[in-house]
């Protein structure tokens, strides 16, 4: 059986089981979604967002890309953010990285000439390294350096969220969402909190939008 055929079979089994457990499940699912959380996570197959926090369908709106990044020129993640914050009105945005991240490890090495697009995406991680070079070089092994960059990357992405007009406006007008930076460890399956920024957390002045935004 080809891998994709197995997925389709598993899907049928899942749907039947769900229906048996809760006959109204799919009827409930057909209603509009009202998730409380936006999850910005890594595309890595070993970090399935909803599974590792036992979330039910309908609870978490999910964006996953390489190394859980929020990039100011990226319409993809910013559209997700705008939809989640302005339309779905989520109360929490979570950026969840993970140790042993292939993207972070790649960013600490020389660029791979064959991966022209990945290189551009990972360039932002190299910039974070440069910003925190002293901190990272204080660690002795490559593994520890990479894991420290994983943490600093999560913190940086949470800060970048605060630099968007979407978050600043929602903080000012609706006093939400709370921003969370988490890191997941593949070795023990546990999530650790790294940073939490409630609405009205200080934002460096050069990143602040003028009040004229609120109209």
């Amino acid at each position, binding site marked *: 059986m080809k891998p994709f055929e197995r997925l389709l079979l598993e899907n049928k089994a899942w749907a039947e089981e769900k229906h048996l457990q809760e006959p109204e499940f799919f009827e409930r699912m057909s209603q509009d979604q009202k998730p409380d959380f936006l999850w910005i996570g890594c595309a890595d197959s070993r970090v399935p967002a909803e599974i590792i926090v036992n979330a039910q369908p309908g609870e978490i709106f*999910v964006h996953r890309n390489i190394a859980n990044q929020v990039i100011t020129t990226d319409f993809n993640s910013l559209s997700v953010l705008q939809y989640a914050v302005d*339309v779905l009105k989520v109360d*929490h945005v979570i950026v969840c990285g993970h140790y042993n991240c292939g993207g972070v490890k790649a960013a600490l090495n020389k660029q791979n000439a064959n991966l022209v697009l990945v290189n*551009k995406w990972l360039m932002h991680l190299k910039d974070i390294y440069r910003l925190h070079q002293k901190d990272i070089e204080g660690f002795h092994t490559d593994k520890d350096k990479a894991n420290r960059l994983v943490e600093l990357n999560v913190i940086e992405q949470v800060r970048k969220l605060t630099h968007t007009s979407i978050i600043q406006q929602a903080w000012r007008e609706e006093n939400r969402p709370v921003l969370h930076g988490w890191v997941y460890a593949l070795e023990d399956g546990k999530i650790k909190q790294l940073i939490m920024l409630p609405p009205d957390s200080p934002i460096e002045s050069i990143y602040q939008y003028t009040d004229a935004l609120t109209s």
Partner: protein
Amino acid sequence: MKTIERLLLENKAWAQEHLAVDPGFLSKLAIERTCEIFWIGCSDSRVHADEITNSEPGRIFVHRNIANSVISTDINLLSALEYAVDELRVRHIVVCGHYECGGVRAALRKAHPGQSLLNKWLKHIKDTYRLHRAELDALATDRERQHRLVELNVIEQIHNLSQTSTIQRAWAGRQGPELHGWVYGLEDGIIREIAHLDAESPLDPLYEFDLGGGL
């Protein structure tokens, strides 16, 4: 309603439960392994890639954005695609849309001027509508039009994938990966395959890369 603390508690419970059932489970995952499927799905909280296909962590590399779009200028998705095809060497790429998609519904309405980023993202769905206007306008109800546009959007994204240099080069080099267009029904939980392309599929010459030059 789930609080953020509950997600973290659920994570601890999930990790403990998995370790109780299979003590080697997480250490197996900590070692990087190849996954065979790249999933491009919608961010919608009701469409969990891993859960609806009963997939264990490690099986599917996942990108999720608004309305499972593949856009030729989007470095976010294209770098995930490049990583999946050239590094992980996946055998299958699934674009999975779903009925009752909020992004597709929004694209059928007038744009909201306050959602400047989202509008640009959804513009591509409007373009798909325009391409198939005769077929869509012939349908009797708004709901049917929405459903059909969900399907046409998935088919369009499969073709968008086939028009990338990443896919064309992989098809020429290793006859893979296969591209699958799926639609998930929220009302019954079942995934249906509606389109399929592989290395043998004819390409519109307008979108073909000249791979002879080595670049």
